[in-house]
């Protein structure tokens, strides 16, 4: 229901939920029954949310308002829609537990088509006309840059959900919720080098993120004593990968480190399987994210990848999240960006309530060093006060047939080079 509404760009409020305006509404059986139509909140999970909520010390006189911007159509729409799914689920859970500062959170949504010019226009409109308190969203780095410029100028806090940062957004009002390229590469390169060998071949989609991501990977390859035997790039939207696959087969690398993303990740994986490169070769990297798994037809079963979220993480919060997500959006692996958008709402709540006001500067400052519970861990996660990026314990997983990313090694927190000088 929310998905449809928000697609049309309508204002989306959770006014349906009765009794939500009072501080800390007890989660009764009635709430659970009522929620059964949309999502199920287990009592255990609800009490966790409740305890989070108990820290609220003030009651605001109006709702906190978020502007959600995402590419819901266009080449990276799979990621954009996954983010929206997680965001809506997080919003429902937050509002069901009373919202922020005693008021339900209000959201306006608009599609950006992954076009930076559209992002800038939409964000400006949200700030000036909709008077939002915060912006959440964007997928590609071009979108991020466009949104960061507008929000920083207006002093509005901005939450990026998608992973992959390789530089910090210094002197801006950006809060980085995704895992960064160091998180993704640092544990994975030595693991692969030790397990399969030190000859790496890099392949990626030809735009800024894969170049930067593979650039970070190269540093760790050198540090691990490995060599890069070739580096291949193909434009987004490449239908035929035969030539790249032939080159990889001829080069015989120990490890293929792939930054091929979007629909191309699927095309590449399927063709690698039919042309006999997979399953024999060892491939890893962001190409193996769960977003892309269902359409790959088992091409990457048995491969290893480094992620910050796995459905195999064992705690009640994650069980509840998994059940709610699958109930609402169907089976299949939960996209990483969907899980991030879900619990990002908890950090936002914690920061706003710590700020004690909707003042934009105070809210942004409150994000620095704030902690929140997530389905990722029994312990709270923390936003680094310097680079304003959530620190993540990373996992190395092996992909099981059917799409479970089974944890084979807990890596813990990763040191990164995101710094403000």
């Amino acid at each position, binding site marked *: 229901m929310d998905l449809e509404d928000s697609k049309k760009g309508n204002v989306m409020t959770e006014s349906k939920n009765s009794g939500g305006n009072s501080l800390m509404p007890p989660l009764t059986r009635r709430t659970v029954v009522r929620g059964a139509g949309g999502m199920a909140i287990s009592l255990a999970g609800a009490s966790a949310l409740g305890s989070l909520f108990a820290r609220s010390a003030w009651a605001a006189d109006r709702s906190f308002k978020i502007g959600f911007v995402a590419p819901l*159509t*266009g*080449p990276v*729409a*799979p990621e954009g*829609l996954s983010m929206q799914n997680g965001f809506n689920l997080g919003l429902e859970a937050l509002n069901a537990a009373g919202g922020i500062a005693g008021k339900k959170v209000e959201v306006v949504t608009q599609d950006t088509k992954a076009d930076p010019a559209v992002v800038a226009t939409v964000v400006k409109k949200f700030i000036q006309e909709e008077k939002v308190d915060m912006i959440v969203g964007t997928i590609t780095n071009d979108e991020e840059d466009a949104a960061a410029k507008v929000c920083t100028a207006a002093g509005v806090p901005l939450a990026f959900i998608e992973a992959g940062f390789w530089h910090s957004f210094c002197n801006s009002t950006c809060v980085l919720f995704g895992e960064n390229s160091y998180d993704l590469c640092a544990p994975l390169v030595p693991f692969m080098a030790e397990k399969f060998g030190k000859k790496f071949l890099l392949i990626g989609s*030809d735009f800024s993120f894969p170049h930067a991501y593979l650039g970070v990977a190269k540093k760790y390859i050198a540090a691990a004593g490995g060599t890069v035997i070739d580096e*291949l*790039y*193909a*434009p987004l*939207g*490449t*239908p*035929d990968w*035969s*030539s*790249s696959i*032939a080159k990889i*087969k*001829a080069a015989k690398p120990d490890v293929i480190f792939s930054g091929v993303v979007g*629909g*191309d*990740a*699927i*095309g590449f994986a*399927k*063709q690698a399987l*039919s*042309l*006999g490169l997979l399953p024999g070769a060892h491939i890893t990297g962001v190409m193996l994210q769960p977003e*892309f798994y269902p*359409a*790959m*037809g088992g091409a990457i079963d048995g491969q290893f990848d480094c992620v910050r979220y796995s459905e195999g993480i064992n705690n009640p919060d994650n069980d509840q999240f998994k059940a709610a997500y699958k109930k609402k959006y169907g089976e299949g692996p939960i996209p990483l960006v969907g899980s991030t958008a879900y619990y990002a709402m908890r950090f936002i709540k914690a920061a706003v309530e710590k700020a004690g006001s909707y003042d934009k500067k105070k809210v942004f400052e409150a994000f620095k060093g704030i902690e929140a519970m997530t389905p990722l861990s029994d312990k709270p996660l923390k936003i680094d006060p310097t680079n304003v990026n959530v620190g993540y314990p990373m996992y190395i997983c092996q992909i099981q047939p059917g799409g479970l990313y089974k944890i084979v090694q807990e890596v813990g927190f990763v040191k990164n080079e995101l710094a403000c000088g």
Partner: protein
Amino acid sequence: MSAWLQVLLDFIWVSASLGLVAFSLGLILGELKIVNIAQGDLMMVGAYSMYALRDLPFLVALLITVVFGFVLGLVLERGILRWVYDKGFMTTLLASWGVGTVLEQGVAAIFTVSQKGIDPPLTGQVTIGDLSYPTYRVVVALGIVGLLIGLLLLVYRTSLGLRLRASIDNVEMAGVLGISPQRMFAMVFAAATALAVLAGALIAPTIAINPTLGLSFLAPAFFAVLIAKQGSLAGPVAGAIAVEFVFTLLQAWLNVTVAESTLFGLLALFVVLKPQGISWTWKTARKETS
């Protein structure tokens, strides 16, 4: 050795699939004098049709898809294009662009924009020396080659083909001689649509299916038609082979991005140096509007 054999087999595969699309595009351009921008989107429709029918046996799904493509072509020609033939080159171009956009958005509305994939009906590998290659690609490539030979024989060796070529050469004169241009237009467009849909259906198991997949085939297919001799129906097929030959060679040495821009640069240069390809469509357009 096996690396070069694989390059050769890849070349045959991409030439066959592009050849089919280029043939259908050349058919429409030759007979209807329309630059059909929607051709790539018709391929996309074929791929989605196979996805929608993925639970049926492959050949049954393929048959339904081709029949659906033929009917879709008839509907598009009778319902939209025939009203704009006499409105000039630009109008038909925009009309076909509009059709393509509607198809893309319509498919996105039905299937969502997220990537889809279907499994090939043949999963085995053909072994040649020390190289193994997917059976599906070999069978489909051979099938397309056979189909194209059959179609060209139909065009050049039968009375139906004679009437088609007469209509392409001079539609008014053919009309005087009893070849109804309207029926010919409708049948050619429907057949060409069915071929484009077939091409999309056949490559569907080897790619990621999304609403914009047709775009990446459109530009090479147009160049294949442009570098061919005007009005020739074998020409676009030869053009497709030439385009893919150059592209395959470039890709063997360069990164795909660089290879692609070099390819289109070379093709543009070719069209500038050998402008018959463009000038005749331009003249035709002028003749149509006057």
